[in-house]
C-alpha cells in the first residue's frame, strides 16, 4: 500500500463517517459542524487527486460560505420540538428509493467488466492551467453562471423582503 492509497482510504473513511454522523444528528448545529469536517475531507481528496484549486474552492465556498448560510437558516427556523421528532414514513420512502437506485448503480459499477476499457487519465492540473482551460474552452458557461448569480440576487431579495415583512409583526408582538 502506497502512501497515496493510505491517505485516500483514511480520507474516505473520514468523509463517510462524518457525513453519516451529520445525517443522523438531531441537533442541526452539530450536523452542520460534521458536514464541515466532511467538506474538509473532500477538499483534501481533491488535493490528492491533483486539483489544488478545486480543493481551495471547496474550503472557501462549501466549508465557508454555504455552511454559514446553513447555520443562519438553522437559526432562522423555529427549533422547538425539532430534536425529538422522527421523520414520517412519507419522507422515508423517497429517500430509500433514491438510495436503492444509487446503491444499484454502485453495485453495477463494481461488478461490471472493465478489463477492456482503458482507465481514465487522471486530470491533474495546476491552478494556472486549470484557469486557462476554463477560460479558453468554457467561457460561455462562465458568463451563464454570472447571469445565474444575478437572477439569484433578484430572487433572494424578493423572497427575503417578503419573508421579512411576514416575520416582523410577529416579533413585535412577542416583545
Amino acid at each position, binding site marked *: 500500500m502506497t502512501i497515496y492509497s493510505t491517505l485516500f482510504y483514511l480520507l474516505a473513511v473520514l468523509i463517510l463517517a462524518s457525513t453519516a454522523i451529520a445525517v443522523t444528528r438531531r441537533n442541526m448545529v452539530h450536523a452542520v459542524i460534521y458536514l464541515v469536517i466532511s467538506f474538509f475531507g473532500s477538499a483534501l481528496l481533491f488535493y490528492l487527486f491533483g486539483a489544488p484549486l478545486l480543493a481551495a474552492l471547496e474550503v472557501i465556498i462549501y466549508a465557508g460560505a454555504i455552511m454559514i448560510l446553513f447555520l443562519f437558516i438553522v437559526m432562522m427556523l423555529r427549533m422547538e420540538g425539532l430534536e425529538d421528532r422522527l421523520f414520517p414514513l412519507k419522507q422515508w420512502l423517497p429517500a430509500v428509493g433514491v438510495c436503492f437506485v*444509487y446503491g444499484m*448503480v454502485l453495485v*453495477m*459499477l463494481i461488478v*461490471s467488466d472493465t478489463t477492456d*476499457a482503458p482507465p*481514465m487519465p487522471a486530470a491533474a492540473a495546476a491552478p494556472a492551467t486549470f484557469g486557462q482551460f476554463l477560460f*479558453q*474552452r*468554457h*467561457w*460561455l*458557461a462562465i458568463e*451563464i*453562471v454570472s*447571469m*445565474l448569480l*444575478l*437572477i*439569484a440576487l*433578484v*430572487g433572494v431579495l*424578493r*423572497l427575503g423582503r*417578503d419573508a421579512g415583512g*411576514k416575520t416582523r409583526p410577529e416579533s413585535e408582538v412577542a416583545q
Partner: protein
Amino acid sequence: MNWMIFSPEICCLATALVFLFLSMAPVDSRRDYIVAIALTGVAVCASLAGIHAQGELFHGTYRIDLFSQVFKSMLLMGLFLVVVISSGLNGIERRYHPEFYMLLTICTLALMMLVSAVHILTLYVALELSSYSLYILVFLRKGRDQGTSSGMKFFLIGASASATMLFGLALLYGATNAAYFRVLIEVIPGVIHQPEVILGLALALCGFFFKMAVFPFHFWAPDVYEGAAHQVAAYISTASKVAVIAVLLRMAALTGGASTHLVHFLAILAIISMTVGNLTAIAQKDLKRLLAFSSIAHAGYVLVGILCISPQGNTSAIFYALTVLLLKFTCFLVVVQVAFDGENIEIDRLAGLHRRSPIMALALMTALFGLAGIPPTIGFTGKLLIFTAAMEKGYFALVLIAMFNVVISLYYYLLVVRAAYLLEPAEGEGALAPMPGAGILAGTLVAAIVAIGIYPTPILELIRAAAMALG
C-alpha cells in the same frame, strides 16, 4: 468569431439588461409593456432572419444549425406571445413588472442556449439558468402564500432532478471519456451495453423529464400552474416545453437508436405519463390544473415521437412542439382574458363564454379540439405524424395505448367546451372586456391552428430539413 449568427441571443441579453435598468427606475408598467413588446419583437425578427445561419461558437461548445434556429424562432415567438398577453399582468405586483420581463427574457436566453449547447457542461449550466429564472417567476405571484408554496415545491423537485441529472452526466462522462456531443455520438453506440452508460443516459434525461413534467417528476406541474401568475404558467407550458423537446431529441439522437433498453424505458414513461395525466385531468375543477394535467399527457405523446429515434420521429416531435406552443398558448390567452383580475379560474366560471365574448369562446374551442386531436386542427396533424412515425418503427401497442388516451382526453376537453358554449352565464356577468388586440390575436391564432392543420406542407418541409440537421 462570427457574432452575426449569435444575434438572437444578443437581442435577448440586451432586452434583459434594459429591464434590469428599468427595474431601478420609477414604476411604470405601461412603459415596461411597450418596451417589452418592441424589444422582443426585434428579437423574433432577428431569429427569423437568421434561421438558415450555421456555425460553431465558443470552442465548439455551441452549435448553430437549422435545428437549433428553428427551435430558437419558436422560443422567441413564445416569448413574444407571452409578452403580448402581459398588458394586464394583474397576477404580479406592479413594482415587480420589470423583473418579470427581465426574468422572462433571461429564461428565454437560457433556453436558446440549451437548444444550441453541444457540450454537457454548457448544457447543464444553461438548464440551471432557465430553471432558476422560472422558480423566481413562480415566486413573483401576488399574494405571497400561493406563489411561495408552489414555488418552493417547484424548486425542491427541480433541485433534486438536476442533481440526478448531474450524477447521470458524470456517469456518462466517466464511461465514455467524452463531453462534446459530436464525440459522444460516435462513442456511445459502441459502449451502450455497459450498465453505467445506459444508466447515465437515463439519469441525465431525468433533468429534462422534470422540465417536461414526465411521469416520475410531474408532481410540480398542477401546483405550479395553479400557483403561478397566468402569464408565467403560459410561458412554462409553451416555451420551456419547446426547448426541452429539442434537448431530448439531441440526447436521444446520441444513442443512434442502438439501445432497446432506453427505448423501453422511454416507452414506459410515455405510457404512464399520458395515462396519469389524462385520468387525473378528468377530476379537475380548476382550469389551470386541468391544463397542467393535459400537458403531462402531451409530454407522453411527444415522448412517443422522440423514442422512435428516426427522422420521421424527430420531424413529428418538432412539429408537435409547434403544436403545443400554439394550442396551449391559445388556451392561456383565453384564461388571461376571462380571469383578467389575475385570480385563478374554475371551469364553471367559463359558463356562457360564447355570449360574453364569441371570439374567445371560439379560440378556446379550437384550441381544446386541437389538444384533443380533432381534425382539421394542427393537433390532429401533429398526432397523426407521431403515430405514423411510431407505426413505421412497429410500436403498435404503444400507438394503441396512445389512441385510447386520446379518447379519454376528449371527455374532459369537451367538458370545458360544454361550459363555454352550453351553460348559461351566471347572474350579473356582462360582456367580457378583453384587452385591446386580444380579439385580433385570438382570430389570428385560430386561423393559424386551422390553416397549418389543413396545409402543413411548407412548415413540414422546414422541419424535415431541421430534423436532418440533427443527425
